[in-house]
């Protein structure tokens, strides 16, 4: 898919498939093309080139057939500021054939006590939860959630994660964007990382983080990492970054007990006591930063 805004190419030949019944997370730095991609699928704008099918329908041609089947949570706004939360959900319920009970849904997202509160008087997190409920009211087959937990406190984030798990368990397909790597790693079956309008990685969280093992520890700054490396098996990498934080990576395998013994023995010979020593695999955040770089985006 290709989408241009004047001279700017927002989506530049992006290809992705989100399977039914799965949670697909689209990750990418600001300006990567996440929202544009989702809004083409929602029928808000037409792609300049390529093929788009949502539930087998072309959003540019069969939008009125598609809309009843999808639920949409925009990145922000979209709800009339003066309308109370409960009244807004009741309105949306009247647009659908078999809607959820608005009172039940309001309770499910924890807004029962705010049903008479105008949208503009809700907190940022409450507004997000109402917007999420609005996406679900019509019992859709597929929901698009654009940064669903932005602005939520930890309790609301966890509640939202439970809700997304419940959607998946009940057979609803979910496509979400997020800047929280832990969210993507915890919730999704399938992660697509995009940058500059293209897919740079695509797979399950486990595939993307791979089996590469990491051993981290803290100790006095300035240890001789070359000497440390010479004491370890050949395929390891070792570095100190930042000062006093040491990282040993095994790109093609896991950290074996023997490696751990070699590291602690090397430290013991030098009377160095490592602290905060831990063994872990790469996180999605490591993969994301590796693929999209560390420089700040607009």
């Amino acid at each position, binding site marked *: 898919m290709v989408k241009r805004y004047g001279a700017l190419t927002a989506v530049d030949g992006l290809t992705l498939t989100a399977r039914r019944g799965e949670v697909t997370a689209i990750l990418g730095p600001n300006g990567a093309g996440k929202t544009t991609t989702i809004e083409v699928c929602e*029928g808000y704008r037409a792609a300049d080139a390529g093929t788009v099918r949502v539930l087998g329908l072309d959003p540019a041609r069969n939008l009125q057939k598609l809309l009843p089947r999808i639920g949409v949570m925009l990145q922000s706004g979209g709800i*009339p500021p003066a*309308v109370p939360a409960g009244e807004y959900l009741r309105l949306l319920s*009247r*647009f659908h054939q078999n809607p959820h009970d608005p009172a039940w849904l309001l309770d499910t997202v924890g807004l029962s006590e705010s049903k008479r509160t105008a949208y503009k008087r809700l907190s940022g997190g409450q507004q997000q939860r109402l917007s999420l409920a609005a996406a679900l009211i*019509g019992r859709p087959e597929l929901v698009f959630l654009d940064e669903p937990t932005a602005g939520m406190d930890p309790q609301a984030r966890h509640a939202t994660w439970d809700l997304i798990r419940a959607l998946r368990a009940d057979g609803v397909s979910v496509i979400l964007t997020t800047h929280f790597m832990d969210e993507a790693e915890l919730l999704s079956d399938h992660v697509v990382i995009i940058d500059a309008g293209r897919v740079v990685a695509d797979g399950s969280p486990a595939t993307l983080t791979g089996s590469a093992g990491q051993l981290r520890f803290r100790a006095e700054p300035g240890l001789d990492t070359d000497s440390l490396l010479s004491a370890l098996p050949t395929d390891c990498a070792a570095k100190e970054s930042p000062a006093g934080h040491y990282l040993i990576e095994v790109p093609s395998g896991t950290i074996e007990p023997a490696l751990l013994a070699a590291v602690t023995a090397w430290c013991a010979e030098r009377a160095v006591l490592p602290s905060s020593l831990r063994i872990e695999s790469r996180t999605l955040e490591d993969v994301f930063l590796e693929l999209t770089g560390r420089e700040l985006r607009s």
Partner: protein
Amino acid sequence: MTFAPAPGAAPMRQMVAAQAGLETRTLLRNGEQLTLTLIIPLLLLAAFSLEPLVSFGGGYTRIDFLTPGVIALAVMSTAFTSQAIATGFERRYGVLKRLGAEPLSRTGLIAAKTVTVIAVELGQAVIIMLVALALGWSPNAVAAAIVVVPLLVLLGTAAFSGFALLLAGTLRAEATLAAANLIYVVMLGVGGVVFPLTKFPPGVRSLLELLPTGALSTGLRDVLANGAAFPAKNIVTLAVWAVVGIALAARFFRWE
């Protein structure tokens, strides 16, 4: 309860009724809008009919002259000013965008807005006419007025709505607010609402009668105070404005 999918659009009539219901309630709860659509017209009606602030001429009693003009003002306030401001802010807040993801089509949304405007106008008309009758209004009209007055009001509503949506769909919300209020005040002065157009020089007068507010107030006054059956010129004028306004809105309205 479960989230098991069971999607489907509701019947169009149900969707339009729900949307129109919400829009009407929102409008009635909004103090500024209510001031514009009801309080100001009623104050004008009372103030200008009880005190001889302006000499209307033409052999009318004051209330007989004022009532048609105030009805025209009420129609403009709802169909034009209030609708432009409300729609401009709906666009700014992304409300129109979010509705675009619902089964309610754009045609359905326009229908809901039309129903809202007409419902509010009916309420305005009833209240204004009751107050006018209490103030001694005695319309001088032929039986055809039963059909011609609603026709004038509908054509005026169509014309005002077209230009309301043109403003709301092209300008920033704040600019729409300013322009819509400014036009309201100017038309209050030169639209034949409380100041008779006969007081203007003949050239200016015929020009003002070609504006939507002037055409509506003059047409209504012709039917309700002069006993005219069919003010053809005013009806044609309003119809032309309606076609032009709606065509421009359809061409230039931007949803986001």
